[in-house]
Structure formats: C-alpha cells, structure tokens
C-alpha cells in the first residue's frame, strides 16, 4: 500500500539519502585514517566493521525488504531450543 509514485518518494528523500550516505562515507574514512596512523582495529571492532560492509552490500540488493535484512544482520541469533538450555 503506497499512495505516492516512486518518483515522488525518491525525489523528496534524495537529499536526505545523500546526506546519510556521506555520513557513512566520512565515518569509514575516519576509521581508515586512524588505522593508517597506527591503531588497527581490534578483533571485536573488525567484526563490526565487517558487519558494516555486509550491510552496505545488502543495500545494493534489488529487492524489497532491505530494512528487515539489515535488522537481522545486526541481531543476535535466535536458538529455538533456548528453553531447554535455560531449563525454564
């Protein structure tokens, strides 16, 4: 259910998208500059950096549901047998 045209949606959001992408780009540049100056990412932060790369790849997918995929990417796994593990 969408009451607006695709052109209208993209047009009204274009500057906001541009600004958010620039923030991501500038942040990654900041990280890389810090790495280049001799402070490499720890294993934990490298894992997060990889998550960001995966998120960017997800944005490039040609399908609806990117927001849901990103949410799951940044989520802890669900274990179906958790009640047995916890004994509750």
């Amino acid at each position: 259910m969408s009451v607006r045209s695709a052109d209208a949606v993209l047009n009204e959001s274009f500057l906001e998208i541009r600004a958010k992408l620039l923030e991501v780009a500038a942040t990654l540049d900041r990280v890389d500059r810090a790495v280049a100056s001799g402070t490499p990412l720890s294993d934990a932060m490298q894992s997060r950096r990889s998550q960001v790369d995966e998120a960017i790849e997800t944005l490039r997918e040609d399908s609806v549901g990117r927001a849901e995929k990103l949410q799951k990417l940044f989520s802890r796994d669900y274990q179906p047998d958790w009640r047995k593990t916890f004994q509750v």
Partner: protein
Amino acid sequence: MDYIDPHIHMVSRTTDDYATLARMGCVAMSEPAFWAGYDRGSVDGFRDYFRQLTEVEPRRAAQYGIQHFTWLCINAKEAENVSLSRDVIAMIPEFLDAPNVLGIGEIGLNKNTKNEATIFLEHLELAIKFNQLILIHTPHLEDKYQGTRMILDMLCDDSRIDRSRVLVDHVEEHTIGEVLDRGFWAGMTLYPVTKCTPERAADMIERYAGERLLANSAGDWGPSKPTAVPDLIFEMRRRGHSESLIRKVVYDNPIEFFSQSKNFTFKPRG
C-alpha cells in the same frame, strides 16, 4: 485529530508536557510500569511507584483533560533480581482493583537471560490468575530479534494465553510480521535512536495495513519525544493516507484493545 498514546512514561515528564500533549490532541494515554533509571532496592519502592501510577498521574493528566490508564509489573531489567521480583509480583494484586489499571506490563526481556525468562513466566501466571490484559516489552538493538522470538515462544507455549489480549510493543521491521502472524497486537514505538522513526512506522503501516497495529511515543526519561504520535499522524497525512486509516492506528485500535479490560472507562470527547 484526537489520539491515544498507548505507551508513555509520564512519571518522567513535566506537567508542561501534559499541556502540550493535550494541545496536540492526546485524549488518553496508558503508562506501563518500567525501569526508573536505577535499580530499586525494596518492594516498598515499587509500592510507592505503583501509588504514583494509580493515584498521582491520573490526577495530573485530568488537569489537562487527558484520561490516564496504567499497567503494573517489575520490569525486565530489574527482573534479574529474582527474589525482589517475586516480592513485587506478590504485592501487585493490592493495586489491580485501582480504577485505571488495565493489566500487567510492560513485562518482557532485556538481555534475554534465564532470570528474566523466569520472572516473565511468573508475570504471565499472575495475569492469567487475575484475568488481566498483558503488555509486552521487547528488547532493543541486537537483542530484539532473539528476545522477541523467545517471548513469542513463551506466550505461544501456554494455551491459556488469549493472543488477542496481548500487546507486543517496540516491534520493528524484523519482528512485526511474526507478532501479527501469530495473532497478537503489535505496537510501534517512535523513538530517536533505539527504536523506530515516524517515517519507518509509516512504512510498516503501508506494508502491514492497520489491523492490530498501534503507535506510541514511549516518552520516557531518555532522549525521547512525547509528541511523536502527532509526528506519525503528520507523516501519514503528508504521504496522502486517508484520515480513517490514520485514526484506526492512533485512536480506534487502542480503544479496541484496551476495551477488553473492565477498567477501560474511556469517554470520547463529545
């Protein structure tokens, strides 16, 4: 447009906020019991808090023509203290006959631990025993997906739970589908950082329509905006949605869900 905020923590807000909400069209609200920003040390601390929820806030709201309802529990964060939690759960029935109490909430998980799950299940027993509606808090950020699935497991494993009497709050894109598909009500919390923006909430309404869907502001002591529901109304209007769809989400649906409690004595504006 008149609207109802179904999840807002007014103990954290100033009286000026009541005035602003009234001017923005808020005619009723429900306030779940939650974490105060610090762990309380005794059951009497909760007894005083429940007096605030059942006596003080309804009076404050009434000064601005807003009808105030509430929910009682020990929240998931403090549920890590199992002994204190059990004392609080045993004390809650003292307040269940207060005229503005709609049910047990906001119960749920925070970090998805065994103790939190244990106390969640004991809250469910309390709700079942006293035939109360249930309002659920789902965790935030990386804990949300796992915690929401765990909560749904516990609810669905108990055949005594009537899913139409349970509202699962703080749903986002990766949890809303399962909550609605399993027959529960779902609440979207409009919040600047950890939950969802009015724009993303409008997206979810477009994807799932308005059936069994509510929107709230949380309006707590964190960086939140008590007038976030009017922001959603504005966003929906800006996109060209019908007044009837907007009204369904922000007014009709809360009334339909809350009306399952005998204490929901809401009187619409004449």
